[in-house]
């Protein structure tokens, strides 16, 4: 064999002690070169009807892929950006999980095989990494982190990369062409934008802070409330969403998961310093936080919104937002962060972690 990649893993304790804590070692972001404002997107509609999308969602513009950019290029870009912030190289990665919903590669060509993770691992030089793709709608990256956290906790993996590249702006293009009224089930498609995000997890020092808890659940009776598939009358994809039902179900079920994530973390709700929700719209986020706090207690000292310039970037929203927070030095060492997700499926979940000093140092310490 000229080139071979991979290695063998036991089921427990091959690399470290079981019960290890995962820490976030680095985060990366990749943005496509194009921008489309909400006004421009609304103006491109074939059927005009009154819609103040910017006021309702808080989305002013979104980034969109141009020629030569797609899910794979965004994922590779984000992975390289995370590695540039890491003190380790790609050869140290034991595991690479690509968690995109979209698998566009070479433009709007959807890659079924081989896996995107194989191509990405090869592109970044992760020569010994276990790789596969994970798909769980907008909860994809958090699901990848959930899986990798288990591998690290068992001592099977020392370090790994969870990455996603979402080229989803074709949803907006196709929705703008076909929507006829404000009641259209493609309305949510106008909120999306393209982005790549990546996170490197590693086994933390004994007794160190890191991921304190990760909880995800699928409420499958709601699995048909949001369906994405290839478009029937044009390139790219379409998404049909029963937005109000999905929103109601997400709110109703999220508080249980948030409560459990907080309880498992051992952190009282009021000690959470920052909340990073799934970036859908300002109104939906506010309603979700209000309901959650009624059930769980006050936890929203700083609700981080990243909608204005990015829109909803699907599975990448949490880590794209985390990256911006780190670059803007919004965190200080020891800050506790809770990510909250609600995704098609219906998957609800929350992850609670502590930002450690080393992570802050890598992105610049807050004075």
């Amino acid at each position, binding site marked *: 064999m000229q080139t071979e*990649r991979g290695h063998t893993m036991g089921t427990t304790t091959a690399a470290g002690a079981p019960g290890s804590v995962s820490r976030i070692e680095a985060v990366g972001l990749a943005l496509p070169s194009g921008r489309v404002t909400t006004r421009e997107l609304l103006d491109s509609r074939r059927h005009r009807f009154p819609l103040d999308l910017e006021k309702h969602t808080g989305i002013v513009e979104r980034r969109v892929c141009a020629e030569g950019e797609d899910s794979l290029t965004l994922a590779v870009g984000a992975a390289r950006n995370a590695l540039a912030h890491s003190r380790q190289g790609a050869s140290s990665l034991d595991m690479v999980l690509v968690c995109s919903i979209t698998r566009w590669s070479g433009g709007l060509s959807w890659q079924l095989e081989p896996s995107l993770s194989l191509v990405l691992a090869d592109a970044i030089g992760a020569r010994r990494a276990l790789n596969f793709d994970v798909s769980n709608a907008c909860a994809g990256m958090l699901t990848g982190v959930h899986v990798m956290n288990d591998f690290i906790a068992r001592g099977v993996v020392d370090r790994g990369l969870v990455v996603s590249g979402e080229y989803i702006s074709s949803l907006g293009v196709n929705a703008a062409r076909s929507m006829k009224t404000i009641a259209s089930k493609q309305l949510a498609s106008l909120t999306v934008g393209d982005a790549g995000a990546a996170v490197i997890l590693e086994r933390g020092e004994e007794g160190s802070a890191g991921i304190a808890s990760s909880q995800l659940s699928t409420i499958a009776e709601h699995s048909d409330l949001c369906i994405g*598939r290839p478009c029937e009358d044009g390139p790219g994809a379409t998404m049909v969403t029963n937005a109000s039902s999905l929103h109601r179900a997400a709110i109703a079920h999220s508080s249980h998961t948030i409560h459990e994530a907080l309880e498992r973390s051992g952190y009282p709700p009021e000690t959470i310093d920052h909340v990073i929700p799934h970036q859908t719209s300002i109104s939906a986020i506010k309603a979700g936080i209000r309901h959650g706090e009624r059930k769980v207690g006050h936890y929203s000292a700083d609700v981080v919104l990243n909608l204005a310039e990015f829109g909803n970037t699907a599975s990448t929203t949490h880590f794209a937002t985390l990256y911006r927070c780190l670059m803007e030095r919004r965190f200080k060492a020891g800050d506790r962060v809770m990510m909250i997700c609600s995704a098609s499926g219906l*998957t609800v979940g929350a992850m609670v972690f502590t930002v450690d000093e080393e992570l802050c140092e890598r992105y610049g310490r807050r004075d």
Partner: protein
Amino acid sequence: MGAVIEAVVTAGHTSSDRPPSSTALAVEAARRTLASAARRPDAIDLLVNASVYRAANIMEPANAAFVQRDVEADGEFAPVKGRRTLSFDISNGACGMVNGLQVVDGFITSGAARHGLVVTGDVDPLPGRSEGYPYAPLGAAILLGPGGDAGFEAFALRSYPQYADLHTSTIRWSGTEHVVGVHEDSAFHARCEECADAALTAFLDERRLTPDDVDLVVASPPGVLKRRSSSPPAHPTLRADQVLDADSLEPARVHTAGIALALESALRSPRYPSAGRVLLVAVGSGITVAIASYRKPRS
């Protein structure tokens, strides 16, 4: 030791009234797997779907959620610690089920789940609009539970990206409609055999095992370990009687369910009851070779 296999079932398409559905095939296999193991659907804490070719190419939500819904694995959504079902998809071509086994085994080993299902189902996504789609519709489910002294002991994944172009598949816009294209080079199977041989040799070396330490090897696709490359293997390798005669499996060409089909056949084999260590070997696009080493429970 890790999780044990409680049941394995494959399900083919039997209805002539409607086209095969990847979800329906996975659901049928999952239901029969649960029945075979006398487990209730709400015992499932984790459900992983490994299908690649899905009816209508639904990309969101995870198709595992549809399977969870139809199997009724939701259980009670009450705030009971650690007892809610999580479902998601894994994709890695023909190796996806072994990756799924590795993930579910891990959650069971760590105590995050008690029982987990790995399911799959592949169908021609766009009948009449697919170019070169070669696979028969088949679903499969493997139920895992807590092990003890037996269970999975190691997993390995080896990739040979220099052969990535030998088997590719895409969905693309033709100008008037989306079409599925599966493109396979004539050299793909021969390279798969070489890669499987190399990966298995490396696995045995890393685990400090000799072929005599292995009682049975269950492989997919059929024949991938039986034929040899033109050059002889560099290390002692397996005897023919250690490898399940996968060539006898029907239908001959299945995709992600292939390793479950081979395992289901192995469970019926007279060689299985006396086997101690069983290796699962799946080979597919990439070229990727996934290997799992399993210590079978005594009873």
